[in-house]
């Protein structure tokens, strides 16, 4: 083998590179950032306007005519705080599903990245982190909008981006795993209808879970989005000890989807 001082022309020169190198993850994320700069306006626009529309429709519409206060909260504030979770799931699961699929199957982006010293594990981690950071920001928009509907600032709200981050990491991992699993893009419809929509509806965003049958209430505890809704409301109106359990649940959720996403995408990317 080659000596350390004078390497043989064709011989090995490097020591072993590590798994999950920050430099590789940062490189992949920088690619996302460069691409995001070309379309951020439309994304930011819909992320701001959407909660306003929802708040006007549900908060004011329903709140003024059909529903009175919920759990002692004005309905518009109930919905406004719950909408954080809506923003988080939509800005994580869909970009993860479609983005991964398109980059893999149509643009061959991942082929180029994996030809560089980047492994699938680093690729998935970077994609999740980027989506997580974005969703953590977008998740705050509904809260900011709700300030204009009378929500009072509270110190706990500073934790909302963190709650959004750990939830969106999980949904990003879920989306990547789905993209690595389906054979064709139209199969996303099944996932949206069977998984995303129910999670979104039974999260406690628009109506409290406590009104549901017992079994549905139990099931809702396993909905990460419900846990996020509860955490955001706690951040706005006061924490309880079991909120720590909710954080733990979301961390486990993110960890599990992370590992599954890596396995599923690796099967696709490495022949």
């Amino acid at each position: 083998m080659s000596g350390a001082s004078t390497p043989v022309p064709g011989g090995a020169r490097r020591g072993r590179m590590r798994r999950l190198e920050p430099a590789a993850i940062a490189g992949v994320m920088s690619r996302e950032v460069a691409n995001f700069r070309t379309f951020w306006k439309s994304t930011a626009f819909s992320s701001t306007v959407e909660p306003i529309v929802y708040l006007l429709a549900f908060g004011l519409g329903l709140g003024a005519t059909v529903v009175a206060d919920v759990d002692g909260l004005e309905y518009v504030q109930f919905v406004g705080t719950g909408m954080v979770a809506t923003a988080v799931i939509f800005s994580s699961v869909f970009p993860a599903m479609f983005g991964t699929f398109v980059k893999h199957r149509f643009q061959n982006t991942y082929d180029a990245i994996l030809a560089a010293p980047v492994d699938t594990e680093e690729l998935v981690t970077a994609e999740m982190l980027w989506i997580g950071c974005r969703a953590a920001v977008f998740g705050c928009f509904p809260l900011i909008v709700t300030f204009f509907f009378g929500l009072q600032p509270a110190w706990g709200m500073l934790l909302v981006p963190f709650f959004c981050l750990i939830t969106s990491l999980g949904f990003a991992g879920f989306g990547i795993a789905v993209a690595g699993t389906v054979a064709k893009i139209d199969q996303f419809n099944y996932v949206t209808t069977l998984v995303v929509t129910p999670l979104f509806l039974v999260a406690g965003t628009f109506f409290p879970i406590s009104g549901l049958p017992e079994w549905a209430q139990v099931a809702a505890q396993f909905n990460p989005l419900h846990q996020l809704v509860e955490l955001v409301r706690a951040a706005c109106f006061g924490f309880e000890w079991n909120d720590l359990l909710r954080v733990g649940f979301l961390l486990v959720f993110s960890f599990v989807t992370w590992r599954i996403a890596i396995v599923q995408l690796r099967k696709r990317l490495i022949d």
Partner: protein
Amino acid sequence: MAAIELKQVVKTFGEIRAVDGLDLEVPAGICLGLLGPNGAGKSTTMKLLTAQAIADSGSLRVLGYELPERSKEARAEMGVVPQLDNLDIDVTVEDNLRIFSRLYRVKDIDAAVDRALDIARLQDRRKDAVDELSGGMRRRLLVARGLVHSPRLFLLDEPTVGLDPQIRTEVWDLIEELRSGGTTILMSTHYIEEAERLADEVAVMAKGKVIARGTPAELIAEYAGRDTAEVYAPPARRAEVRAAAEEAGLEVRAAGPAIAIVGAERASNGVVPDDAVLRPASLEDVFVLLTGEELE
């Protein structure tokens, strides 16, 4: 030590044996052309070298690193130009290079981007989005992107497939420059002309194996002899001439509207008709004889 050493490598996809007992050694400093028809296993071989495919069996060593265990280190010192363009089209030329400089852990990114822009001759287009570039510029950028980290080994998978002749020449010039700079190059192609023009040595690949290897001149001398006689005639007469030549122990292949009698210098009187056009034997003759493939 050789830059690439593959021994008895096998890679199957279900029933298909894409790479089937491949032995390939690429010494440092040469440009090796991997010449083979469609489906020969060229792209699969390239993917094995970057560990984007994992071999079923056999041993692979790239730049002294054992694959797939140490493929990450190998990839750090090797540049790749894929068969399919996979640039980020909405992003600027400069940012495409910048991203890959980071992926390749380049220390001085600005300098690397500048150098790559020079290679691609795209300094004045650095701020433009890739989808505003012409086909030739895109291709040059794709090559330059694989060079941001000044790799010791450069893999090109059919670098000019489907390009028009002018763009092809531009890409060839780029590879030529690199080759004279001493970078080890492995280039797959099914264009004879490309191999003849750029490769120090050619390995002819068919059905997942290397079936012949040498410099173009060696391959021609060994498999095709000195002269090839082409006979342009109606089909009936071509068949007659062919039969006579094969009778006399010569190899004959179809060549568009003609037949080519290979090794015509060895023919006894009368076998090669008087109206035949004599030309030096070519790598194309070798390729067609060895693989049985008609060329486009």
